[in-house]
C-alpha cells in the first residue's frame, strides 16, 4: 500500500502500544515487530489509516502491539476480514499478520483467494514450521520426520512451500526474509508496502520453545553466506562467502543449479540475472532449498496488475450507465405496477 502523508517524522516508538508484549523471551516475533514499526516510521504512514488484521496463533497477537487500528479475528480467516475492510474503505492501509498454521492449514483457502483477487494488502506469513500457541504440534510447513506431541514417531506429511503456493495462487508480489535480519527485512517490508496489490512476504521465524534452530542450516553465521541467495532485480544471482557461487539454468533441462564461477569453466556470463517480473523464474527460485541450493531471499516476484477493489469499483461504475435507478423509491415503482383506486 502507499498511503503517505506529510507529517512530522515518525519513529518506530510511535507505533508501539502500552500493552505488554506476551511472546516468549527470544521469540523471532520481537524482531519482526521492530522491523514493521521501523518500516512504518520510515514510510511515514498515516497512523489512523493503518490497520493490522490477524487470525489466531502466536503471530496473530501482533495487532495488540501496534498503535494503529487492529482486529484480532478468528483462525485462518484474517484474509477475509481484510477483504471486507478494503472493500468498505479502500483508502485504508491494511496489513495481515499470520503464521504457517493459520495461513496454510485452516486458512489456506482464504489465502489462495486473497492472492488471486489481488486485494491491496500486505500479507506477512511468519513461518516457524510449528504450531506454537497450541504447544508444539507439527504444522503444514514442518519437514517430514518432525517430532511433536501429535507426531511422537515423526511427521509423515510432505510440507507445503509457502512461496510456491502463493505463486501458484496467482500472487503478484512474493518476497522472503528472515526475522533477525533487520537490514534485509526492513527493505523487503518497504517494497511490500509500496507494491499495489497483495504483497506476500514469507518471514522465516524462529520458535525458540518448540522448534528452535529450525532454520540454522541457512541462518547461522557460519552457514548463511553459502546458503542464502539475496535477490536483486537486474543483478546476477551471486552468493557464497567469496561471492563466487552463482545460479544458472542447467543446460537441456528446466532446472536451476548452483555453480562456482571459475570452476569447471563457468564464467560470470553463465550466471542468471534476476528478473523479478519473470513468473517461471520465480517459481524455480521459490523451490530452491539446502543443501544443494541456497534459499532465495528478497523479492522473488513483482509484477503488478489491477487490484480487486479497483476492478470492483470500475465494474460498478461501468454498470451505472443505462437503466439502473439510483433512487430506491423510484426503483420500487419501476417495472410492472398497477393502481388500485378507492
Amino acid at each position, binding site marked *: 500500500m502507499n498511503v503517505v502523508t506529510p507529517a512530522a517524522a515518525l519513529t518506530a516508538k510511535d507505533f508501539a502500544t502500552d500493552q505488554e508484549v506476551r511472546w516468549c523471551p527470544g521469540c523471532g516475533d520481537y524482531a519482526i515487530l521492530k522491523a514493521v514499526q521501523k518500516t512504518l516510521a520510515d514510510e511515514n504512514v498515516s497512523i489512523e489509516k493503518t490497520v493490522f488484521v490477524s487470525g489466531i496463533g502466536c503471530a496473530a497477537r501482533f495487532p495488540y502491539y501496534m498503535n494503529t487500528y487492529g482486529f484480532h479475528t478468528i483462525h485462518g480467516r484474517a484474509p477475509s476480514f481484510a477483504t471486507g475492510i478494503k*472493500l468498505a474503505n479502500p483508502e485504508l492501509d491494511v496489513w495481515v499478520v499470520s503464521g504457517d498454521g493459520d495461513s496454510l492449514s485452516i486458512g489456506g483457502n482464504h489465502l489462495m483467494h486473497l492472492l488471486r483477487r489481488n486485494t491491496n494488502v500486505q500479507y506477512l506469513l511468519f513461518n516457524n514450521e510449528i504450531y506454537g500457541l497450541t504447544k508444539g504440534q507439527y504444522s503444514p510447513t514442518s519437514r517430514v520426520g518432525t517430532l511433536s506431541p501429535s507426531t511422537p514417531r515423526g511427521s509423515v506429511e510432505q510440507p507445503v512451500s509457502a512461496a510456491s503456493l502463493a505463486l501458484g495462487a496467482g500472487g503478484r508480489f512474493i518476497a522472503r526474509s528472515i526475522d533477525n535480519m533487520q537490514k534485509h527485512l526492513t527493505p523487503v517490508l518497504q517494497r511490500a508496502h509500496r507494491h499495489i496489490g497483495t504483497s506476500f512476504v514469507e518471514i522465516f521465524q524462529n520458535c525458540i520453545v518448540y522448534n528452535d534452530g529450525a532454520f540454522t542450516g541457512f541462518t547461522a553465521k557460519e552457514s548463511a553466506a553459502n546458503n542464502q541467495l539475496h535477490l536483486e532485480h537486474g543483478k546476477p544471482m551471486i552468493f557464497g562467502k567469496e561471492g563466487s557461487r552463482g545460479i544458472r539454468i542447467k543446460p537441456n533441462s528446466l532446472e536451476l543449479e548452483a555453480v562456482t564461477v571459475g570452476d569447471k569453466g563457468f564464467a560470470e556470463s553463465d550466471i542468471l540475472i534476476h528478473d523479478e517480473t519473470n513468473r517461471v523464474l520465480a517459481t524455480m527460485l521459490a523451490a530452491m532449498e539446502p543443501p544443494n541450493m541456497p534459499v532465495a531471499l528478497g523479492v522473488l516476484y513483482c509484477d503488478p496488475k489491477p487490484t480487486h477493489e479497483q476492478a470492483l469499483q470500475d465494474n460498478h461504475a461501468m454498470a451505472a450507465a443505462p437503466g439502473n435507478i439510483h433512487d430506491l423509491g423510484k426503483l420500487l415503482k419501476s417495472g410492472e405496477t398497477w393502481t388500485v383506486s378507492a
Partner: protein
Amino acid sequence: MSASNSAIQVSGDDHPREQLESAVVRFAGDSGDGMQLTGGQFTLATALSGNDLATFPDFPAEIRAPVGTTFGVSSFQINFGARTIKTSGDAFDVLIAMNPAALKVEIDNLKPGGMLVVDTGSFNERNLRKAGYEKNPLEDTSLDKFKLTTLDISKMTIEAVSEFGLSNKEALRCKNLWTLGYVYWIFGRDREPTVKWLKQKFAKRTDIAGANIAALNAGHALGETSEAADGFQGFTINPAKIEPGLYRTVTGAEALTWGMVAGANLAGLKMQFCSYPITPASQVLHYMSRMPENGVSTFQAEDEIAAVCAAIGASWAGSLGVTSSSGPGVALKGEAIGLAVGAEIPLVILNVQRAGPSTGLPTKTEQSDLFQAVYGRNADSPLAVLAASSPADCFATAIEAVRIAVKYMTPVILLSDGYIGNASEPWKIPDIESITPFPVKHETNPEGFHPFKRDNKTLARAWAIPGTPEMQHRIGGIERNYNSGHISYEPENHQKMTDTRAAKIAGIANDIPLQTVDSGPSKGRIAVLGWGSTYGPINRAVSALLEEGHEVAHIHLRHIMPLPTNLGDLLANYDSVIIPEMNNGQLITIIRDRYLIDAQGVNKVSGQPFKISELVDAIRTRLEK
C-alpha cells in the same frame, strides 16, 4: 373453486363466464417446460386484473432432471380471488399437466370436479412408463371425477409457430406459452403484458419472440373457438377489495433485498453484501449484485465463512456488513458470528431456511433453523433474531434488522424460508420517505474514548472506524476489559462482560412494539401462536374458525429474540396455546422454557407449507377437547 354464485352466469356478454370468488391453479410440467416462467406471467396478469393472490413455486433441486421423470416435475401454484388471499391454497381447482409425470405427482391434490388440462401430445408410451403408469390414465376411468380437457398442445404449438422456421425442439419450447394463452382464456386475462415482456426478453431473437407470441395467441384462440362445442365458457373472478394505492408483485427475495437497501439508506451507511451461493438464498445475492447504484457493494466470497468474515470486516470499517445463506451455510458461519457477538459489531445474517439436516431438501421449505439462530453458537453468545411472515413482510423486517444491528452493535439473524423467498404476492409499494431514518453516528471524539465505552441506555459500544484520527484501537475475539477494551483474562471481568452482552440483547425488548393479536379475541379459549411463513395458513385457518363462532385468536411473532415484553401476559389470557411450526417443535420449546406454559405443537416437516385444512383440523380437535 369457492364459487360464490356458481350457478349464475355473467349476463350481458356474448361469452358468458362462470363467476368464481377464488381459484387455485397449479401449472405442472417437466423441469425444462418453463412452468416457473408461465406461473410468473400468469401471476402478473392476475395482479394487473385486480385480484388478490399468493403463489407457491415448487421445483426440484436438479436443474434438468431426466426428462419425463416424476422427480423432475416442476410446479407453480397460484391462489387468486375477489377476496383477501393469504396462502397459495390447498387443493387445486385447475391443474395443468404437461406430461404424465406431472399428472402422477399432482393429481391427488386436484379437487373432485376440478378442471384438468393435459397435453395429450406428451402422453406417449415412453413418458407413461417413465412416470410409472402401466396404462394410459386418459383412456381408463381413473380421471372420471375430474373435468378433463385433453388437448394436443405439442402438435398445436408446432402448427402455431410453423411460419417462424424454428427447429422442432425450439418450436416445442413454446408449449408453455401456448398453454398460458389457453389459461388466459379460461380466466379472461389480458395477454398484452406478456406480449410486451416477450418482446423485451427476446429483443435479439425476434423469431423466438414472434413464435412465443403466436403460441400464446393460438392457445387463447383455441379457448375462444372451442367454448361453444362443450359448453364451457371460462371463469371470471372479480377484482378483490384491496386498499387503494400503487402495487407491484414481490417475491420474498426481492423484498428482502430492497428492505436491506432501505435499511442501509435509513442508517446512512453503504452496504457491503458478502455471500456464497446456496439454494434457496442465492436469489438475494443476485438481486443485491444489481444494485451498486443504491449503495450496495457485492462480494461473492470463496465460501460461507469468508462471506461472513468479510461482512464483519466491512462493518468494523464502517459499512453495514450483511451476509446471506441457508441453514448449512449459517452453520459454517457460526464461529465468525460469535466473534461479532463478542467484539460487538453490527451484522445482519439472512437465513433463507430449507429442509434439513445437512443438504436435506434444498428446494423445499422448512422453518427448522430457529434453534440454530437462537442457540447455535459456542458459549453464551446472544444476538437478536427476527422472522419475516410473508414475501412482502420481508421488507419491513429487513429494515428492523438493520435498525437493531446498528443501534445495538450486534449481529441480527433474519429468518426467511424457501417458501417466502420464492413465493410472490401483491405489495402496496411503501412510501420510503415516510419511514423514520435512524442515522448512524460513528464515534469521532477521542476524549475518554475506548472501543467498549457504552451507551448507558442501549449498552451498545461506541462504533469508531479505522481512518478516524486519534481513535486507534484494537479489538478481537479474546475477552475485552469492560473499562478499556484491552485483552482481559480477569474472572470478574468475563462475568461482567457476559452479563452485559446478555443484558444488551434482552434490553432490545423495550425498543420493539408490544405483541398484538393478529385476528380474533384478546382473550379466550385458544391462541394460535406462529412465526415466519406459517402466517398465511394460520390466518386463514383462524378466520375460518372465527366465522364458525369459535374463540380462537392468531398471534404472530416478528421478534423472537428477544420476545416482546407483553407476550407472556398475552398468552396467559387464553385457556391454551397452539404453536404450529414447519419443524419438530422449536418455538414451542422456547415458549415453554420462557413462560412455563403447556403449549401444544402442530408440526409438519414434509418440505411443503401447511394446508389451511390441516390447521383447521388440528385446532378443531383441541377445541373439542
